[in-house]
């Protein structure tokens, strides 16, 4: 049963994530630039980019089909749907299956599937290469992600992300120290899923390093704007999940829903997200791009921590 509260939740949650995600992406860029001794883009650069792209002409390759045309919209829709799964402001009652972590993971997988198809669709060799790499990576990372989800479910005793976050927001991290281990895994998955160094380099169009950039190379105009925005939203969603698990304070329960509470929660999310974005930027600056075949080591570390969590929870 969908109530007024659920609708309010959908609007606020998706709205906040959509609004703040470009800012987080720019903060990461800015931190990286500063670490390299450059000035970096202004904080609102990505908003300007999106506005500019929206008014540009859209060009399609001659070989492309309807996949190329629908993918940006599908991706954006998928990401907004995924944004509903991770409460950042307040936690409503579960409704309509929203909040199930397995559904969440496979909705994101669907988005990735569409992007990979689109990479192949344009007929350029770069796109094909990007898609092939993306598919091999996602085949390797899927077991890891599922184990991380399983570890979360074991520690918090539920498959529902809403319930998970409402549990972590009342409990102390000290009573569940294994959440620290899961947070390491989640952080690595955040890095891998959003195509950052050491897995992929979001800044170059060098054929040697391209994964994500390769697939969206053929896009232009408003389609490119949608692709970039959906990528930013994906990062913000994963950040929201990590924040909800590790530092959930400030997220309010639906019972005590008031305007000032919402504003405070939004500001806190902005602050926590910015700090996390700075951490991501620092992490990225301290690493170099890994060779493609040594990337599974990174997955193994994430896998190790979550499997370890399960062992500790089950046996201790």
């Amino acid at each position, binding site marked *: 049963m969908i109530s007024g509260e659920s609708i309010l939740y959908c609007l606020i949650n998706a709205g906040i994530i959509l609004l703040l995600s470009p800012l987080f992406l720019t903060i990461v860029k800015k931190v990286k630039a500063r670490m390299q001794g450059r000035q970096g883009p202004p904080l609102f650069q990505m908003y300007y980019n999106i506005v500019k792209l929206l008014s540009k002409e859209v060009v399609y390759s001659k070989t492309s089909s309807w996949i190329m045309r629908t993918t940006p919209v599908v991706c954006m829709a998928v990401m907004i749907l995924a944004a509903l799964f991770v409460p950042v402001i307040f936690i409503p009652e579960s409704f309509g299956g929203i909040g199930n972590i397995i559904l969440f993971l496979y909705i994101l997988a669907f988005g990735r599937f569409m992007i990979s198809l689109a990479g192949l669709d344009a007929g350029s060799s770069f796109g094909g290469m990007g898609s092939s790499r993306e598919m091999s990576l996602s085949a390797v990372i899927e077991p890891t992600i599922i184990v991380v989800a399983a570890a979360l479910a074991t520690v918090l005793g539920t498959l529902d992300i809403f319930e998970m976050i409402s549990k972590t927001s009342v409990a102390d991290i*000290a009573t569940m120290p294994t959440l620290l281990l899961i947070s390491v895994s989640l952080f690595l998955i955040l890095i891998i899923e959003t195509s950052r160094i050491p897995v992929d380099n979001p800044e170059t169009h060098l054929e040697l390093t391209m994964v994500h950039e390769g697939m969206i190379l053929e896009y232009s105009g408003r389609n490119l704007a949608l692709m970039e925005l959906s990528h930013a939203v994906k990062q913000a969603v994963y950040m929201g999940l990590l924040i909800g698990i590790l530092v959930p304070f400030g997220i309010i329960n639906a019972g005590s829903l008031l305007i000032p509470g919402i504003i405070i929660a939004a500001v806190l999310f902005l602050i926590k997200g910015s700090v996390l974005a700075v951490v991501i930027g620092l992490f990225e600056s301290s690493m170099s791009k890994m060779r493609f075949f040594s990337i599974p080591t990174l997955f193994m570390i994430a896998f*190790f921590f979550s499997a370890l969590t399960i062992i500790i929870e089950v046996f201790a």
Partner: protein
Amino acid sequence: MISEIFSDVVRIILVFILITAALTISTRTLSALVRVYSIQSFLIAILACVLWGMLQEDTLLLIAAITFAVKVILIPSFIGKIQKRINIRRDLEFNYLKPAGSIVVSLGLMLMVYVVFSRVLGNFAVVNPLFFLGAVVGVSLMLMGMLVTFSRKKTITKVMGYLSMENGVLIFGCFATELPLIVEVMILIDLIILVILTTILTVGIDSSLDEYQERLIQYHLWPSEEAKE
């Protein structure tokens, strides 16, 4: 109430120690490996202090002090010095297992330790879960160190594995049984000797004695004749 806070802190430290153990297995840069080791030792020193807060045994404070002096400062700086001289920065060669494989194996090892300990120690796990966890982490760390020792090819990284093995023994000693202080001190002396021996192994076990001294001079580990004058 206070003891609850202490046991929470102990659990968090144990989790961090496990993170450093995983890093010891997967890190390839030598300087980072040494840094991970000294962080791990530092965590153990803090752990010993917290345990002292819980148990009020003065031996633990001494262990913390010795660990800090020797393992956080002395050994890492010495290995760092050797490393600079012999000019090896990264360890890329592995025997039998690559890091990804080692991590999986170490997971299996931890599982095994859990199962074995819960059978052997019986209701100790129920009576005192915190100390049970500590013992398991200690022994697992030891086995993971062993894994590092045999999967790495360079002598200097093998030594890092051995050192983290010893950290595991120390954690186990802090939790499960009362390791006499004298044993701990003896082990530390062993470690220092081991690190000194490492110079011999890394600089050249394949050389005759004369050649060995020449190499020492060559790597500036021995004052050369010209330098004396």
